[in-house]
């Protein structure tokens, strides 16, 4: 394996931070988030996973799509496409898997989403293997692994004296140019794994659409939508116009999109007030069917990476692995 010392890695990251936006796990008032850092000293290296996934680096919680300037009957539009290159360091393999799942929708399924594709092209992902799985992690049950390098450009794994470095893609190789690496015999230590959760086959889902299970489970759901907020693959969005300060006597607005979630009460309400998904059970069912059936049918990739964030954040302990256990059991 090729190894870099801690100091060597820090110096390399510091020089990267001079050239591009460097994003890494950072302590923000006691909350660990992937955020831009000015230098490597701000990076937190010992963590299970940040509270939010790296989804927001490609698909921000609120994103400006257009600026609208209105002067009486005259309207001018300005597209606000994201600019600038970013390197994200310390990406957990589950989060990288999540980006891959978003790619299948936003880039690989026509029409290409201009904003997402632009950010994606301008980003290099530097992964960091997990030494062990967190308490609620189940990536190995949905096709991932704590040291899975498939979806990043460069993979790091902590070893004695520093980090093992693996260039996964050409983009990663280019990023590594200039980093002094030492050949060291051996491999990074294997991560400690959790007991896997059974993954129901895709075909197992449709026959259980009408099960009482969904309603029972949703009895305690608060429709708070935190599960979607923390999810690395939830991508539903709302679009709206908001006022900006007027300029030269012209009214100005921004058109934004912001994260939305199918467990929200009004999500499927149509003009005139009819809501075909008025019950919590219908909405919670939609969430789980989207993860394991709808999204795979629509774009070809599963929409759960096993990161476990929704389990950690649910105020009423709704647990996605409980759903997987149930489906596996009833479809046996």
């Amino acid at each position: 394996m090729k190894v870099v010392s801690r100091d060597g890695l820090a110096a390399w990251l510091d020089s990267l931070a001079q050239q591009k936006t460097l994003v890494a796990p950072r302590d923000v008032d006691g909350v660990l988030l992937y955020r831009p850092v000015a230098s490597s000293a701000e990076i937190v290296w010992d963590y299970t996973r940040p509270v939010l996934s790296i989804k927001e680096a490609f698909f921000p919680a609120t994103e400006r799509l257009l600026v609208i300037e209105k002067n009486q009957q005259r309207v001018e539009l300005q597209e606000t496409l994201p600019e600038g290159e970013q390197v994200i360091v310390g990406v957990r393999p589950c989060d990288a898997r999540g980006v891959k799942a978003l790619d299948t929708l936003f880039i690989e399924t026509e029409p290409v989403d201009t904003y997402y594709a632009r950010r994606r092209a301008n980003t290099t992902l530097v992964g960091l293997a997990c030494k062990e799985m967190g308490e609620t992690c189940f990536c190995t049950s949905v096709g991932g692994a704590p040291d899975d390098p498939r979806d990043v450009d460069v993979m790091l794994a902590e070893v004695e004296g520093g980090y093992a470095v693996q260039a996964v893609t050409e983009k990663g190789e280019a990023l590594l140019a200039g980093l002094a690496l030492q050949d060291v015999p051996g491999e990074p230590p294997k991560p400690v794994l959790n007991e896997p959760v059974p993954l129901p086959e895709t075909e197992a889902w449709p026959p259980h659409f009408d099960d009482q299970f969904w309603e029972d489970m949703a009895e305690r759901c608060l429709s708070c939508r935190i599960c979607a907020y923390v999810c690395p693959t939830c991508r539903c969005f709302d679009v709206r116009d908001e006022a900006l300060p007027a300029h030269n006597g012209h009214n100005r607005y921004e058109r934004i999109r912001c994260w939305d979630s199918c467990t929200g009460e009004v999500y499927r309400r149509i003009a005139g007030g009819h809501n075909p998904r008025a019950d919590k059970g219908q909405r919670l069912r939609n969430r789980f069917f989207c993860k394991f059936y709808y999204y795979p049918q629509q774009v070809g990739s599963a929409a759960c990476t096993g990161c476990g964030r929704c389990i950690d954040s649910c105020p009423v302990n709704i647990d996605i692995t409980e759903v997987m256990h149930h489906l596996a059991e009833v479809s046996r």
Partner: protein
Amino acid sequence: MTSLNGSNGMAPYLGKLVVVKDMAPEIKLFGVELLNGGNARFADYKPGQFAFVSAFGAGEAPFGIASSPQRGEVLEFAVQRLGSVTTELHEMGEGDTVGVRGPLGNHFPMDAFKGKDLVVLGGGIGGAPLRPVLQTVLDNRADYGHLTILWAARHPSLLIFRDEYESWRSAPDTELHLTVDEPDAGWEHDVGLSTTLLEKVAPSPKDAIAITCGPPVMIYYADKTFQALGFTPEQSYVTLEARMHCGIGKCGRCNLGDKLICMDGPVFSMAEVGNLMESFL
């Protein structure tokens, strides 16, 4: 920055309102002339397709296109005032600028309908996306069989496209039936639900196609009535709606099970609707 030329699916074309006409209380017809190169994109849109209309500052919302390109370049939308975008549109007048994104979604297979009798059932503002179907039949009258139009509303004043009824009635091989829930003093037509009218008119299912648009509950019962008349689910078409936010398969808001109304619809045969995992109702 790329230009606003349609490569960005979320960027609208600009359009000038050239027609703003009251059709009914809270319902206006808007005619839009596209300004910045959108005409090419809208040169060949089809009956049943929809577009997002922006009232800049309030937002954008999807509407079934109520016109047909055979009748000129002006796009028409029938808009009922319900939410913030439609309220802002209702505040606007001729000469004002709106945005238009589209055309989006699939369409009624008008070519496959050729030679067949058509039964078109529109409820309230749901008649709007059916108008291009009527226009296509009337403009190519010899291509289609008998045309039965069933037009329903809660009240006579809420019937849309009233100034066109004479031209529909006088077209060859075409009949128009009107019904309202609550008649007024001068009302000379049917009273009751659209399904009651449908039972009374009782169109034959032989070589015929049924096309329905209206509130979900009306679609549900109209389908039952069409079935009772002998129409198979394959002969029956509907156009469905959702409060979508992108129209291009990304925002997730319009899913019906694993299908998306914006990409797989909005036009579905009742056979397809029957195979959906989730009900539109």
